[in-house]
């Protein structure tokens, strides 16, 4: 392994808000002006490279991963040495200006490849939890932090969640599920497809679109509108938007610390095709190791994961379940192509 390289593993923050005014909730956080959004991203240390919106939400591709803004929900995911948690104070302040208060928070991440390169407050999970505890308002009285281990030492899942009383009850009826996939040791030939062609004069937008087609990412969900970007000399990010649902992929293809992530949100009453989606994702990257985390109130989404991956030569090495406030059940599974 390289001594130091680009940290592919993302940190992911999901914030839920509520307000008294239904009109505000209708557009809500999507009203945040560009300067305020840039101020938040400055605190994290990243910028917007591409964006698109539909009736339901706005999706931004960032220089370091992605941002999704719904009327009362924000999901921000950043890789590298960004200081993601520093987005919390300015986000809470802008939401307050719109009459919205925080009612739920979820922070998740995998295991950093280069933990020593991480700046404060990401120097350790303990430090991150302390920062979260200090930044969140007191009404979020249900809180839990946990590291879910696996038999594959390089993969473990860090989860923090917090909720207020009302959000707890509402979330228990939620039919939304989230799948977060982290893949390492990508197939070398496939990873090369995420390098820009030498002498390519195309913009990052155009080169990104080319990669979406060449790699098969465009076929993962043919209904989705894809907003993609290719970085120079390598690396790729995309957001797929499909009604109220999104999917997102980020790739760091460098040999020695190659990494790709896939994430999607969907609804439990309509998850039949999730196996098909996961299969296509695996075929794009052919990782030697992957972890799949599913977050959902009901328990049936995660069962299709191993059923889908094992026929593709990925053996389930560990499986863990834990319950978190307002998140429901988090199931963390790891897979490798090796026998033992």
């Amino acid at each position: 392994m390289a001594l130091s390289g680009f940290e592919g593993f993302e940190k992911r923050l999901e914030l839920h808000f509520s307000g008294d005014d239904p009109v505000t909730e209708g557009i809500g956080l999507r009203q945040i002006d560009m300067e305020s959004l840039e101020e938040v991203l400055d605190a994290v240390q990243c910028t917007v490279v591409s964006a698109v919106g539909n009736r339901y939400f706005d999706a931004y591709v960032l220089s370091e991963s992605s941002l999704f803004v719904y009327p009362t929900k924000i999901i921000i995911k950043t890789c590298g040495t960004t200081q993601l948690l520093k987005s919390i104070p300015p986000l809470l302040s802008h939401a307050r200006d719109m009459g919205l208060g925080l009612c739920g928070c979820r922070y998740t991440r995998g295991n950093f490849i280069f933990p020593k390169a991480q700046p404060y407050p990401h120097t350790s999970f303990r430090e991150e939890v302390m920062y979260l505890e200090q930044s969140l308002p007191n009404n979020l009285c249900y809180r839990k932090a946990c590291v879910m281990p696996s038999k594959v030492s390089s993969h473990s899942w860090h989860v923090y969640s917090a909720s207020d009383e009302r959000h707890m009850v509402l979330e228990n009826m939620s039919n939304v599920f989230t799948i977060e996939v982290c893949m390492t040791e990508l197939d070398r030939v496939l990873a090369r497809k995420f390098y820009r062609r030498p002498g390519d004069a195309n913009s990052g937008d155009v080169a990104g679109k080319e990669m979406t087609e060449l790699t098969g990412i465009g076929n993962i969900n043919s209904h989705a509108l894809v907003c993609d970007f290719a970085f120079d000399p390598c690396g790729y990010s995309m957001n797929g938007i499909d009604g109220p649902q999104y999917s997102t992929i980020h790739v760091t293809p460098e040999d020695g610390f190659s990494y790709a992530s896939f994430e999607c949100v969907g609804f439990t009453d309509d998850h039949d095709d999730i196996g098909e989606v996961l299969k296509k994702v695996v075929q794009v990257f052919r990782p030697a190791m992957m972890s799949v985390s599913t977050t959902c109130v009901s328990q049936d989404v995660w069962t299709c994961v191993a059923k889908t991956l094992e026929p593709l030569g990925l053996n389930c090495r560990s499986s863990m379940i834990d319950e978190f406030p307002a998140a429901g059940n988090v199931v963390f599974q790891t897979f490798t192509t090796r026998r033992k």
Partner: protein
Amino acid sequence: MAEEGQVISCHTVEAWNEQLQKGNESKKLVVVDFTASWCGPCRFMAPILAELAKKLPNVIFLKVDVDELKTVATDWAVEAMPTFMFLKEGKIVDKIVGARKEELQQKITAHMVA
């Protein structure tokens, strides 16, 4: 034309049809920005489009709010914002969905000379 160098907002279907007609007759490249007030990425692109309009008086820039002109947005099958349609003599020659500023500049340049 008074509007040269500016992004022309079409607030009624009549105004839209009139601008479109003018654009077709001029044989210039027409770039239509389908936007919405509640769409963050649209706000991101607004200053960039204004700058391009100032720089490129030979291109006609039109702006349509999808809530204001719902029928136009439906007819043109606009589902995500911002959507940029490139027109020449009434024909759609290209389309960009999303706030892709580099691609927008590249495509405008390409279609201006084509």
